[in-house]
C-alpha cells in the first residue's frame, strides 16, 4: 500500500530528526561545552556547593591568604586574613555578585568540581572528614607583597615584581583596593562597582597608561637592532618637528650626545630625532617583538598593551619614540619589558599559581615554565643593560640605587589628560637587580603622581628590591 510506504518515509524523517538531536548533543558536549560553561553568566560558576569546602590559597611559603569555613547552616564563609592586600590577585567570592580574579579563574579547581578525585570524596565522607576543594599555591612572596603595598602608601598605582628567570610573580599590588570579604562586597556593591576610583580594577593588569620615558627602552632596542646605536644628536634642550616642539625635562641642554648618554639622562630631543631616523616600520616591529598588541598568557586576564598600527606622521613618530602619543601599556607588561633585558632578551611567561593541590596533599597540576617572547639577542640585551645601569648610577634613576648591589633601571614621567590642567604626570620606574645576576624585576607605576619617575617611583623600586635581596 502506498500509504504504508509514505508512512515509513515519515518515520524515517522523524528518525533523522532524533539522530540529529543525538548528534548535536554529542557535538555540544565535546566541542561547544567548554566555552559555554565558562561563561560568567553561568550561576553554577558562583554557587559554592554547600557540601564541599572551598579550597584555600597560599603563598609560596605556605602562608594562608584565603580560606573558607562552614557556618552552622552549612553555608560557607570565605575569609581573607590580609583584607585588601590580595584583593586584586585573589579577588572576591560572593554568592550574589559572583567572583573575580583567581577566585573566578580557578573556580573549578577551588570547588573541586572538575579536578577532584571522587573516590577521595567518598573516602572522606565515610571517615567523616571534611570534603574539600583543591588548594592553590601561589608564586607570591607574602612579605614582599606586604612591603609593596606599604611602599605604595596612599598613592594610586600599581607595583609588579617578578623573577625574570622564571616568570614567577613575586608581588602584585594595585591601589586603591577594596575589602574582598563577601559581606562587605554585598552591602557596598553599588558604591564600589560604580566608584570613579575603579577600586575593583587591578591597575597592574587591567589598566593601560602612557609609558612616558620608559618606552625609550623599546626605542633604544629598535635603534640597536637596526644598526643606529651609533646615532648622535646635538641636544639644545628642544627640537621642533613639523611645528611641534619637543623639549627635555627642565629644558636641560646636553649638547652632542650618544644613545647611552641620551638614555641615562632621558633626552626627549635625542629620542624624538632618533624615532624619525628609525621610521615607523622599525619601531612597530620592535614593539611587536616586546609583546605590544598581543595577548599575554597569564592566570588572570591582562589587557593588551597598545601600539598604534596606523600610518604615522613625523610628530606621531617623535611622540611615540619618547613614550607619549597614543601608546598605552600595563604595569605588568612593563615589568616584562624589564625582565627581557634582565633575562638576556627572553621574556618568560608570567604566572601566579604554581600548583594545584588536592586536599590530601597530592599535587594535581604544576605550572611548567615557558618562554613567552623571544625579544632580542644577548648582545643587544647587554648593551641595554649597561645603559640601564648607567641610568641608575649617574642618570635619572639615582634614587633606585641600593648600596652594594648594582641596579639597572629606567624612569618615566608620562603626560596624561591631567598634566596640563593639574600638572599630575604619571611616574614610572622599571628595573631589575642585581644587574649581573638579576633576581627580581619590577615595575612601579604611580598614577597622577604629580612628581617625576626619578623622584617618586625610583625610590619605591629601590626599597622594594633591597627588601627582597637583603
Amino acid at each position: 500500500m502506498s500509504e504504508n510506504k509514505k508512512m515509513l518515509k515519515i518515520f524515517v524523517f522523524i528518525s533523522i530528526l532524533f539522530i540529529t538531536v543525538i548528534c548535536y548533543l554529542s557535538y555540544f558536549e565535546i566541542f561547544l561545552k567548554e566555552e559555554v560553561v565558562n561563561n560568567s553568566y553561568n550561576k553554577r560558576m558562583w554557587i559554592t556547593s554547600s557540601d564541599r569546602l572551598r579550597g584555600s590559597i597560599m603563598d609560596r611559603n605556605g602562608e594562608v591568604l584565603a580560606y573558607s569555613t562552614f557556618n552552622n547552616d552549612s553555608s560557607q564563609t570565605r575569609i581573607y586574613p590580609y583584607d585588601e592586600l590580595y584583593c586584586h590577585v585573589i579577588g572576591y567570592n560572593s554568592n550574589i555578585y559572583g567572583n573575580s580574579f583567581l577566585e573566578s579563574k580557578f573556580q573549578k579547581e577551588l570547588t573541586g568540581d572538575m579536578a577532584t578525585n571522587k573516590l577521595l570524596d567518598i573516602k572522606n565522607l565515610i571517615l567523616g572528614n571534611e570534603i574539600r576543594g583543591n588548594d592553590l599555591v601561589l608564586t607570591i612572596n607574602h612579605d614582599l607583597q606586604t612591603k609593596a603595598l606599604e611602599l605604595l602608601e596612599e598613592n594610586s598605582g600599581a607595583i609588579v615584581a617578578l623573577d625574570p628567570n622564571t616568570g614567577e610573580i613575586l608581588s602584585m599590588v594595585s591601589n586603591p583596593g577594596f575589602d574582598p570579604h563577601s559581606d562587605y562586597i554585598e552591602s557596598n556593591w553599588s558604591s564600589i562597582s560604580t566608584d570613579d576610583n575603579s577600586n575593583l580594577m587591578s591597575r597592574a593588569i587591567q589598566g593601560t597608561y602612557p609609558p612616558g620615558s620608559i618606552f625609550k627602552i623599546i626605542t633604544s632596542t629598535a635603534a640597536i637592532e637596526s644598526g643606529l646605536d651609533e646615532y648622535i644628536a646635538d641636544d639644545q634642550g628642544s627640537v621642533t618637528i613639523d611645528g611641534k616642539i619637543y623639549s627635555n625635562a627642565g629644558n636641560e641642554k646636553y649638547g652632542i650626545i650618544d644613545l647611552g648618554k641620551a638614555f641615562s639622562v632621558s633626552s626627549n630631543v635625542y629620542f624624538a630625532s632618533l624615532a624619525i631616523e628609525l621610521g615607523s616600520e622599525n619601531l612597530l616591529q620592535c614593539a611587536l617583538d616586546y609583546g605590544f598588541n598581543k595577548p599575554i598568557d597569564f592566570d588572570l586576564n591582562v589587557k593588551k598593551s597598545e601600539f598604534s598600527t596606523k600610518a604615522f606622521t613625523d610628530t606621531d613618530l617623535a611622540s611615540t619614540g619618547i613614550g607619549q602619543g597614543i601608546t598605552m601599556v600595563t604595569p605588568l607588561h612593563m615589568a616584562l619589558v624589564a625582565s627581557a633585558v634582565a633575562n638576556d632578551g627572553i621574556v618568560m611567561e608570567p604566572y601566579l599559581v604554581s600548583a594545584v593541590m588536592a586536599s590530601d596533599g597530592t599535587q594535581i597540576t604544576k605550572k611548567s615554565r615557558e618562554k613567552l617572547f623571544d625579544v632580542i639577542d644577548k648582545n643587544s640585551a647587554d648593551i641595554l643593560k649597561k645603559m640601564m645601569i648607567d641610568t641608575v648610577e649617574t642618570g635619572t634613576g639615582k634614587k633606585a640605587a641600593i648600596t652594594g648591589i648594582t641596579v639597572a633601571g629606567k624612569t618615566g614621567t608620562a603626560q596624561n589628560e591631567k598634566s596640563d590642567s593639574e600638572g599630575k604626570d604619571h611616574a614610572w620606574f622599571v628595573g631589575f637587580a642585581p644587574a649581573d645576576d638579576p633576581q627580581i624585576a619590577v615595575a612601579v607605576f604611580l598614577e597622577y603622581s604629580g612628581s617625576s619617575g626619578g623622584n617618586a617611583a625610583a625610590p619605591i623600586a629601590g626599597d622594594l628590591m633591597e627588601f627582597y635581596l637583603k
Partner: protein
Amino acid sequence: MFEILASFLKYVFIIIIYYFIYGIIRLIYLDISTTTHTGRSLSSKDPYLKLINRRESLNFKVEESYFLDSTKTIGRSNKNQIIIKDPFLSSEHAEFVFKNNYWYVFDLGSKNGVYVNNLKVEDIGQSLNDGDTIHLGQLDFIFVDQFDRSDR
C-alpha cells in the same frame, strides 16, 4: 548518605535504561526485516500461511506470512523452502502440496507432529481450507485462501 547514593546510582540508572533499550531493540531486530513484506497480501491470489504468534515472543526469525505459490517444505534445515530455526521443528518437518485443486499438508516424519485444527495430521496428509489453523513446533499459522476453488 544521599550524595553517595546519588553519585553511585547515576551510573546504575544509565545502565538500567540502556539495558531496557537493548532489550527492546533486540526484539525489534528479530522482526524488522519482515515489516516491509506485509504489502503483498492484498495483491496476490495465492494462498498463504499467516503467523498468529506474536513474533516478539519468539526467539528466532520468522516471517509474518508465507506464500504458497508452489510445493513448499518447512523445517529447520536450509534445504527447505521455508526455513524457520524453531528448536521444536524437525529439520524437515512438513510439506505443503497442491493437487486435485486442493492444498494438502504432509508430515515429513517430524518429532513433534503437525496439527490442523488441533488434530494430528496422519501419514495420508490433510487437505486445507481457508481459515484452518496449523500448528507445528511452537508456531501457529492460519491457512488463508481467498480464491474460491469450487468453481474450477
